[in-house]
């Protein structure tokens, strides 16, 4: 088991190094940092001096080391567009994206799992068919379309919920939260549903198909043959065996949620990292792009590692080595 954990950790480090290389390459070689930072009137000598000062004439390896060093201290230079330190820009918007992502993930689990269980147990009821239709819509429609649809129905037509922004936020020092104000709570509903609908549908279908598979196994048949009541068979045995693979996939999907937040934040003008990244792409703002890439990669790698460890904890077959009788 230790070997397993070590192997995954090594893989994680490998991915981070590769991503760091890509981020560095982007940062240094795509587009000229100097041209972005100075005006047209600056003389060639001044540019050269600047290059020297910024260490742009050092060897690639040295520059890469500087880059890693800077990254470890959260220093990614300044944004081309905003002329502010990248780390400040990202930190300011980090809570907004995280809150949105977490609320969406929670929503998708709280709705997706029960719906999945229900549709597995009552395969022909009309409610099941309704759920399956909703799930099909959820995984088919592109996120932005769902967002626009929701805005159209709930903001434009019914006027119940706001269609943009985060509402009033409470500043907690290192974090700003919109969950403590009424307007903040109202503002997060539509974006969270938009972002979470795909995940909810995915989880629902996954739970359903896993549970149907599990219900066909011999151990469920044997449990029934022992006269165990339905309640124990379904929610004691079947559910536990269903949720183990589902939990790990759901965990991995959280990374996907953070990425798709880019779209949701655009639709709802939600002031998060995703919107910042998109504007960076539109304006070729390399420092922001490269920093975002590294940050997101770090989050993904961390999630993957946690999920792998979770599997070890939950499945006794991996955790305990089989011993002969």
């Amino acid at each position, binding site marked *: 088991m230790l070997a397993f954990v070590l192997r995954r950790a090594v*893989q994680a480090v*490998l*991915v981070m190094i*590769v*991503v760091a290389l890509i981020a560095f390459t*982007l940062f240094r070689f*795509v*587009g000229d940092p100097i041209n972005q930072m100075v005006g047209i009137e600056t003389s060639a000598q001044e540019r050269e001096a600047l290059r020297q000062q910024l260490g742009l004439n050092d060897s690639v390896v040295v520059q890469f080391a500087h880059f890693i060093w800077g990254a470890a201290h959260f220093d990614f230079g300044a944004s081309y567009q905003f002329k502010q330190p990248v780390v400040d820009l990202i930190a300011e918007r980090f809570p907004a994206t995280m809150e949105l992502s977490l609320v969406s993930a929670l929503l998708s689990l709280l709705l997706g799992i029960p719906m999945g269980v229900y549709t597995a147990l009552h395969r022909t009821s009309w409610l099941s068919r309704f759920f399956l239709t909703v799930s*099909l*819509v959820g*995984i*088919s*429609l*592109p*996120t*932005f*379309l769902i967002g*626009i*649809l929701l*805005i*159209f129905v709930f903001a*434009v037509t019914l006027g119940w919920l706001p*269609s943009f922004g985060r509402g009033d936020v409470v500043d907690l020092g290192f974090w700003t939260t919109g969950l403590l104000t009424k307007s903040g709570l109202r503002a997060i509903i539509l974006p969270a549903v938009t972002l979470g609908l795909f995940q909810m549908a995915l989880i629902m279908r996954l739970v359903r*198909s896993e549970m*149907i*598979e599990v219900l*066909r196994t011999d151990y469920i048949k044997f449990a029934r043959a022992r006269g165990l009541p339905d309640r124990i068979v379904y929610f004691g045995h079947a559910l536990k065996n269903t949720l183990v693979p589902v939990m790990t996939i759901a965990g991995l999907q959280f*990374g*996907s949620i953070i*990425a*798709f937040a*880019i*779209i949701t934040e*655009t*639709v709802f003008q939600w002031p998060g990292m995703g919107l910042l*990244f*998109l504007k*960076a*792409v*539109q*304006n*070729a703002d*390399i420092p922001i*792009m490269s920093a975002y*890439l590294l940050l*997101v*990669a770090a989050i*993904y*790698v961390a999630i*993957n590692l946690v999920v792998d460890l979770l599997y070890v904890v939950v499945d006794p077959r991996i955790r305990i080595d089989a011993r002969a009788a």
Partner: protein
Amino acid sequence: MDMPPVETTEDTDQSQRLATFLDSDVVYSFRQSKVTVLAAIVMLAIVLGAVLAPWVAPHDPYDLKSLNLLDAHTPPAWASDGDVRFLLGTDDQGRDVFSTILYGSRLSLAVGMLSVALAAALGIALGLIAGYVGGSLDALIMRAADVQLTFPAILIALLIDGTARALFGQYRDESTTIWVLVLSIGLSFWVQYARTVRGLTFVERNKDYVLAARLIGIRPGLILMRHILPNVVGPVLVIITINLALAIILEATLSFLGVGLSPTEPSLGTMIRIGNNYLFSGERWIAIFPGITLAALVLSVNLIGDWLRDALNPKLR
């Protein structure tokens, strides 16, 4: 006396095979499911409309000279101040929404197919090499695949697009935009092909007929093309069908975000982006009709895919 026409064995074979196919479980479940049949019709209609756009559309929305700003913001033909010439209304540039939907679908499908072709070509090539050569080359390619798989396609596509912008500058013409888009989407999707093909190549490579070919001295390239590649086509086709829907969605999303096809030659995604600005002011048709078209296309493709998966999976019956 009349002699009945003589049926050749080939005819009997063919008609027998057709009869067997039509009686198979798969076709049976297709005919039973009204929803799937409906989905197939819808998908066919949209695809046909897209393909035949130049002949079917009443206007050419990409011809900037034919546009008249005075026509802009016309509501659909059935509204009180609508115009029969513009069945579904016009957008803010005076483009006929119906025609733009047809031409836009065409563009979306074209970009989708081109990017899938790129992804498939790249993925198959890398997969064949990795599976056949093995060793460190295989490890390299697969590690690259692993790294890329950590990230969702949209992130990769955005990254490539942003990089292209930085490298080539902001002011590009239409064809460059399309190629950059195809490149971004294509490069996001090669991994699945590579992995599948690598696995299959690995299996085939160790089979006796390949060993025999190598012993005779046939060049590896030839072995790959003539022996291994045909065995790989089946599973790859399955991936392509799923991939096409994803590619179309990705293109629509990128266009909606403003980094895809531009407003001068809009695809469905771009139109929705434009229409999004007018949702509150009442000119809803600019976003709604392209939205419905995109939704219908993607929903029907997924419905058919769903049905296909259930029909081919004996366990879920």
